[in-house]
């Protein structure tokens, strides 16, 4: 509530400033004209000139009096709308993102720097998104060349424990099924683009949007900056907001597709995993990638490096660095760089709405496919499989696994599915990296 109030006051203050400036502007213009025509009081004239020319450099003027032919930091023309109201709307959206991150705890680690980057990107005249602006430098340093998402992936690899997957390998199939969220929504995006008429996505753009269904932030940013950098801001915001909304989006779908009896299934305790298996696993994945899908090598390579460093047990210093300081530093840069794409002229377009819709569809489709696949496996498997763990196949580690466990313990108190759900969960990370590699290879 306090945050809401704060936001309201901020917005009000902004509106008040705007109206004061409008009034000032009306007074200022005639005064300036008379001063210029009299040409008498030299001192006062120059003071007026100084004041008016200072006013020309203020953001207020830029917002209140949008000019034709104004260029943004990247040298593109800005419409009058995106110079004035567009910015005001973006400020409102950004304050809403702050509210979501701070008061509601929606992926604050990324949403907060992203939103702040957006705030900076919408400052008029400063051109912070330009080549020599702070955000532009960050963007060119690690996002346009797809570097930062890889560093994040390395840290995620160093935090991931493949034990649950290794103890029950076939649950990897669930992580595969959930990738239907990506490809199903790819078709959805193409259909929306064809039949609705309010957006017009190219195939590359459709692919970049559909990767939201992988429920994996770094992968989404990686693919978006490779295939459709102009949509990066909206895609990243959609991916992270929906990942934060996993506990809201998934349970209704999971409950609709399963019976109470299925949700009550208790799974057998998994076998203990040899330390050597965990050590060999990242190498297995890397070799598979090298042979089958070299296009996924950057993502899977970084991920496997992080995991290998962790499981080797001899480079704890490196693995701790990847899991903590490095990932934190990169998170700040990644957030600010993505935020630079929240400039009004790039974000306030019909496409953003389309991306939000397709992203939601992608999450729902991924969850549904995972649950249905788990039901199928339960029918044919010799040991019981609770269909709820299929929903954890969308990556979103470890949120999706926690949700599966929570819904399971609602149906049967004391039935802890968390470790069983972690298997499909981490397989989902590999699955979405593979899916990303397929999309990249298509557009090569």
């Amino acid at each position, binding site marked *: 509530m306090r945050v809401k109030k704060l936001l309201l006051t901020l917005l009000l203050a902004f509106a008040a400033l705007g109206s004061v400036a409008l009034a000032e502007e009306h007074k200022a213009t005639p005064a300036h004209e008379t001063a210029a025509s009299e040409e008498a009081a030299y001192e006062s004239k120059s003071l007026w000139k100084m004041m008016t020319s200072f006013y020309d450099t203020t953001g207020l003027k830029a917002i209140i009096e949008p000019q034709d032919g104004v260029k943004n930091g990247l040298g593109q023309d800005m419409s009058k709308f995106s110079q004035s109201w567009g910015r005001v709307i973006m400020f409102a959206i950004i304050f809403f993102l702050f509210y979501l991150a701070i008061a509601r705890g929606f992926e604050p680690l990324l949403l907060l720097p992203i939103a702040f980057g957006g705030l900076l990107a919408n400052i008029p005249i400063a051109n912070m998104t330009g080549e020599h602006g702070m955000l532009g430098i960050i963007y060119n340093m690690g996002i346009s060349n797809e570097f930062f998402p890889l560093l994040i992936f390395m840290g995620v690899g160093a935090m991931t424990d493949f034990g649950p*997957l*290794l103890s029950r*390998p*076939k649950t*990897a*199939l669930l*992580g*595969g099924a959930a*990738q*239907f969220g*990506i*490809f*199903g929504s*790819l*078709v959805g*995006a*193409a*259909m929306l*683009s*064809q039949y609705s008429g309010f957006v017009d*996505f*190219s*195939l590359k753009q*459709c*692919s970049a949007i559909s990767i939201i269904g992988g429920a994996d932030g770094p992968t989404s940013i990686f693919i978006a900056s490779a295939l459709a950098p102009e949509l990066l801001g909206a895609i990243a915001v959609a991916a992270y907001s929906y990942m934060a909304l996993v506990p809201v989006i998934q349970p209704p779908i999971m409950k609709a597709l399963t019976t109470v009896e299925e949700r009550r299934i208790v799974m057998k305790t998994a076998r*203990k995993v*040899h*330390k*050597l*298996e965990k050590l*060999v*696993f990242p190498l*297995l*994945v890397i070799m*598979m990638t090298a042979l*089958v*899908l070299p296009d996924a090598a950057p993502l899977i390579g970084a991920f496997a490096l992080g995991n290998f460093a962790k499981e080797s047990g001899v480079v704890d210093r490196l693995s701790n660095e990847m899991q903590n300081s490095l990932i934190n530093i990169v998170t700040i840069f990644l957030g600010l760089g993505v935020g630079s794409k929240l400039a009004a002229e790039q974000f306030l377009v019909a496409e953003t709405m389309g991306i939000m819709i397709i992203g939601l569809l992608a999450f729902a489709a991924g969850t549904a496919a995972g649950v249905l696949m788990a039901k199928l496996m339960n029918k044919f498997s010799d040991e019981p499989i609770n269909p709820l763990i299929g929903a954890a196949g969308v990556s979103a580690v470890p949120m999706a696994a926690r949700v599966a466990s929570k819904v399971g313990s609602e149906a049967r108190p004391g039935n802890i599915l968390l470790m069983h759900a972690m298997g499909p969960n981490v*397989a989902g990370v*590999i*699955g979405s990296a*593979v*899916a990303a590699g*397929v*999309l990249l290879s*298509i557009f090569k």
Partner: protein
Amino acid sequence: MQEIHIVGESIKFMILGMIVVYIFLVVLIQLMKLQAKIIAKYFPEKVIVSPPKQQPAVQSDDDAARTAAIIAAIADYKKSNHNKKV
């Protein structure tokens, strides 16, 4: 014309993508099973022997660290209290 093309293409992407994801994961599953078998066969004892040996050492280290931390905290607390009095 071109738009019809887009949906058709996207369906092809979907089929290709799901097939590749599944092939990748199925092969990976087989490899995981295989390596589990191999490791269980050739390195069976290490699991049982090494953890009990390591764990006490780690724990005592932990205890030592904990004791050090407690001592440091007490010293710090005393110092800060002392400062307050002054």
